[in-house]
């Protein structure tokens, strides 16, 4: 049954979560590209136009104390948020897939170490780890991507491992082994496809989580550093103007909610489309 469902093509039209999530993500990306092309430089100050309330065109989201356009800021924030979350998702998916395949197929020490790392990841809150690690590592995008990936790959490895544990007992794997297949062939040609759908769903769900980590760290001043614009940083900057200009905090935050929602909906939609076990992927 599930084998049959696995092979049906994904229908975006009959899957509201997937449809809505994809449209939301695509609109946000188009919005950020258009803003990049047509809006003024987000760092351009215009003191005559300070604290313009939202809706005063062309400043749809209003301006801050220095007259900078919150809309242009948010658009730039989307670009860096997506850069970080997609890079981390792909990097950690690759590492996690590799470790999960090896741990699931061979078991033994790799597996034992992996499972303790899974425990450890739950025991030490990622955010606390990032904060503590920021003492040793400077900010900046590359460092942040590496740091987030160090934590994020464990989830992929855990999920892939669980799947491979079941999959390695199937007869097609035994058949391939009998036919003289070498280990790399078994892992990457025979077993990898069975984990591929899971990894796609996870990439989407993890991207949302990573985005929340990044914005949280940037809010605390420990993530992306200026001149890179991040949504969390804008919210932190708008905090001192909360009373005079509520829009500086509100709109970038709404953008974060929309981005994470898009990733979660896509993940949920793909999960339904692939007919995957719900509990396997939950944190």
């Amino acid at each position, binding site marked *: 049954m599930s084998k049959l469902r696995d092979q049906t093509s994904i229908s975006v039209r009959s899957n509201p979560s997937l449809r809505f999530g994809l449209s939301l993500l695509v609109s946000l990306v188009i919005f950020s590209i258009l803003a990049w092309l047509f809006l003024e430089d987000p760092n351009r100050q215009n003191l005559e136009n300070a604290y313009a309330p939202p809706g005063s065109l062309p400043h749809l989201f209003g301006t801050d104390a220095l007259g900078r356009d919150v809309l242009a800021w948010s658009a730039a924030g989307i670009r860096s948020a997506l850069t970080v979350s997609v890079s981390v998702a792909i990097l950690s998916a690759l590492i996690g897939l590799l470790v999960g395949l090896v741990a699931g197929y061979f078991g033994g020490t790799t597996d034992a170490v992996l499972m303790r790392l899974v425990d450890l990841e739950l025991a030490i809150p990622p955010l*606390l780890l990032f904060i503590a690690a920021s003492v040793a590592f400077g900010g900046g995008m590359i460092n942040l991507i590496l740091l987030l990936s160090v934590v994020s790959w464990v989830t992929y490895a855990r999920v892939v491992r669980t799947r491979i544990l079941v999959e390695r007992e199937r007869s097609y794997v035994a058949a391939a082994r009998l036919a003289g297949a070498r280990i790399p062939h078994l892992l990457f040609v025979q077993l990898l496809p069975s984990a591929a759908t899971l990894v796609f769903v996870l990439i989407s769900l993890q991207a949302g989580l990573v985005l929340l980590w990044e914005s949280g760290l940037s809010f605390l001043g420990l993530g992306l550093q200026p001149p890179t614009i991040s949504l*969390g940083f804008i*919210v932190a900057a708008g905090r001192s103007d909360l009373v005079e200009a509520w829009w500086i905090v509100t709109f970038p935050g709404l953008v974060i909610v929309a981005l994470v929602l898009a990733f979660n909906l896509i993940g949920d939609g793909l999960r339904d489309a692939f007919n995957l076990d719900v509990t396997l992927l939950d944190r």
Partner: protein
Amino acid sequence: MTKSDIDRTVAPKRAGPGMRVLKAITAPSARYLGVRLLQGLAVLFGAVVISFLLIHITGNPAEVLVGGRFTGEQVQQLNERLGYNRPLLTQFLDYMGGVLQGDFGDSFRFQEPAIRSVLRALPDTLILVAGAIGLASVITLPLAIISVLKRETFIDRLLRRGMIIGQGIPEFWLGLLLVLFFAVQLGVLPSIGNSGFNSAILPVVTLAVPLVSILGRLLRADLLDIMTSDFVTALRAKGLTEFEILTRHGIRNAFGPFITFLALQLGWLVGGTIVVEAVFVWPGIGTLALGAVETRDLPVLQSIVVVVAFGYVALNLAVDLIMLGIDPRIRLGRTK
């Protein structure tokens, strides 16, 4: 007389919860507990290693400490004074020995044992965490029951959509919006600090919102699972209404997975607390950690990491014990 009848006559009529846990220590469950204990110790050891590596991974802890403000010679002197020029293994064993006695070295900032600073800040954080867990459970339970009772209706879909959105709300943003509304606009609640019950309301609500979303999705899925199981079909045949089945049998069966999951979320919750403390200038370990990053107070950072991991391991072991007491399947070694 069938076997179950014999069991019923032999079993004592009523045993207190403490008695039940004691009785639960049978051979399979002792083995299970032993394994869990070893796993917990492994996690703690991992946390100690990570907290050690935090300052040694760049190769030069003294450099981390001074942040490039001093000359090479001064860094060298500092290395010698703090013993950072000894072999790494010696340093680790030294560190490990200290940790076992609760000694992480003195806080640079407060000039007192680092662990003391952490333990002083801990109660404030625990108030937020416990408050959020309590509030989230109280909200989640009725929502999940309504969602399952009215499954695949408008209300169910609305609740599920709300929960997906709730999962993506960053705590720092929600906290600021709550401050804007309740502290600035209405002026009914304090916005920063900890000056009693009222000041805990906003931070606790901020933490509880994402938690409700996560717990709600889990509880709904669990309850739905239960509602399609065989014993529920039997209960339906007996004439119980859906509501009665859910409240009398569904919740009881979902309780175990629920608290197990909740205990697993403790680490994640502490992570959220750090951000919330920063928003509300709440004097807990999050604020302490951020201050320690600013002042490069390494012993305090290290002890926070280990203390949080310890709390997580202890709580999960406690939940294991409770589950052993209330779930005969684990007691008899028939777990998944």
